[in-house]
């Protein structure tokens, strides 16, 4: 699988970004729709795995830089299904305030993350990018973005 290979190759987050700015040469809308690469998946999954605050901040910074350079727009954060098990069903990763918050079904999720809740719960997407404008971009397991 080409994607799996890419994923393995690009999981080394600090190994520089040879592909940087590659996407931005496209028109802005096309760049924003470009498939999310495996490095981003890895980072989004890691940020939730009980890291200490400093490492998490570093990782969030890396993700922000990556989005800025590759896709031209940085989300507020991500919303995804939670794998911690009951009572938690989903969680929010705020890239700017460096917050990871897990929610049970009855908990209230702050806007605009709340609107991504049902998308995450269907289990069809790996994670959902939540933008300050309120726009939601679900990302499928194969990296393609719904926009």
């Amino acid at each position, binding site marked *: 699988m080409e994607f799996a290979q890419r994923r393995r190759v690009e999981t080394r987050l600090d190994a520089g970004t040879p592909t940087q700015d590659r996407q931005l040469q496209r*028109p802005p*809308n096309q760049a924003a729709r470009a498939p999310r690469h495996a490095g981003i998946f890895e980072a989004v999954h890691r940020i939730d795995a009980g890291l200490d605050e400093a490492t998490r901040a570093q990782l969030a910074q890396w993700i922000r830089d990556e989005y800025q350079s590759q896709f031209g727009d940085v989300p507020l954060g991500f919303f995804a299904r939670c794998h911690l098990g009951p009572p938690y069903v989903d969680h929010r990763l705020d890239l700017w305030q460096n917050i990871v918050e897990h929610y049970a079904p009855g908990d209230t999720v702050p806007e605009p993350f709340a609107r991504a809740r*049902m998308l995450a719960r269907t289990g069809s997407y790996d994670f959902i990018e939540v933008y300050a404008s309120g726009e939601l971009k679900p990302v499928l397991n194969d990296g393609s973005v719904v926009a």
Partner: protein
Amino acid sequence: MSVNEARILHRINEVQSAVTSLNQGVIQVSGQVAHVGQRAEETRNDLQQLARDFADFVKRSERIANIQRAETRVGVVEAQLENQFGHHNVVRRFATGLLQGFDVGLVSEETVRAVSEQLMVQNPRYWLAPVLVALGAWASDDQELCERGIQEGFRRSPDRTSLFLALVLRRQGRRDSSVRWLRQYLAAQDPHALGRNFAVILECISQGAFGPSGVEIVQERLDAWRAQLLTDEDRQQAQVGRWRAEMDRHVGPSAQPNFPRLAEVSPQWPQMDAALSHAAAHGALITKYAALAAEEITPQDRIEDAVDDILDRLVREFDEEELPLRREHAEHHAVIRNGGDLDAARRDLDSDLIALEQKLDYLTIQSESALNPGKIGVSRATQRMAVSSCHDWFARAHATFCGDYRQGLPTDVQAVFETTHNTAGVVFKLPRWTGSFTRPMPELEADLAGHWDRASRPFIDGLAYNWGRKVIAPVVVLLLALLILVPTAGVAGLIITMIGGGIWFLVLYIQSQAAAKLQDAVRELLARGKQDSLQQLRGAGAELIDWTSAFRREDSREPQVRALIGDLATAGAAASPYERRVADPGAQSGA
């Protein structure tokens, strides 16, 4: 006992019996009021039903009238078309006949020339007539006449004349001349505003009509146009919008008949119903497009037949001057097709009118060939090729379609019982109760039952017989009687007082029994009402489970649609007859 006392006792008894009968009267009246309420409710339902039936009747008769009007107009328009442009059909038939006549050599040059010249005279302004004269002249080696005929045809319709000649020359095996005309045709085209007949070019590619060199030129040009148009985000978005409309056309009907109790109880039902019917679109899309992907499209045995079909399509295509009548024809047809529903006809007509529009951009022609092949006039093979070219928009439209209906799912499904949800609710003035299905069902049931008990307790307690208050008056009267009668009448006074007291207490006892009976009846009503509510709640809970599994089942087909779009992306091009033909040069013998 004095006369006064006897009178007092008598009056008290009278009052007591009056109170008892009043009480019975109140019970009876409350029963009657409930009955009247029920009748009023029935009458209201009947009236609503009548109003609905009447509205349906009005709508139906309006639709019938619309259909009749449209049918009459279709007849009139067809007669007008026949009257004004019927002679074009003769030219069209002659064109195909002429080419086939050339093939088998059964027609003499004189006949061809005579008929074509006659048609030329009879069809002023029609492009095909001079072109046919040119063909007749070509057959009889009259170069001058041939050139003049072509020039006239080109003047009347440069597009069609170029394309027609490119195809005819290709059919006759003059590849170089054919490619020259093709180049001429393409050079004159603006990818932002192509004529309807451009779909014929797509048809030619899918049928392999131009041969390898022709296809190369066309493909190169088309790729360049596509790249040029795709840089414009708005145009791309417009195509995604077209495909989104295709997704919306496959949305299933409401599933309310399968989930009546959930629909009754849950305010989130409309969102849930919309999500389920949208998810059902996956199945419909799979059925439609899997058939297209799997279809074995057999090419025509001879290239001449394929070209003839395309020529047929080209010459059959109506002229610009026929357009207003054709448009009217399409409008009336849409009304008939939609059973007289003018709104549905208008929606349906939009896609018809796109096919009738004079100028479309290249991307729209691709989308329309994929979505409305019948209306734009392309074959199944071309449709598949077009779907393949449009796979990116198809995939994007499908992905956003899924995202949108999933986002519309309610985060919390609730059950709401209003005062009016059953008769007992109205009698007890049951306040509104809301419960979320995220809580376990036993807990919800206990909560609803508790709500009923809390709401009905004051009412039932109010009906209890108040012994404490009722007994004060007799006790006081009897004590007074004792104090007055025993010293004056002795034992007889005591007996009289006891008899009076006994009677009085008997009356009170009968009243208390009646009150207890009323209380029991009301308790029974409450129990029935509560049971009914609990059953509604349980039913809705069970239906929610069914709905969830139905939604998951439909929603889980989304990856299949994505895979199918991926298949279609590769299926269209690889299976085109053109590629089969280059693999076997012998099959091009007609060229």
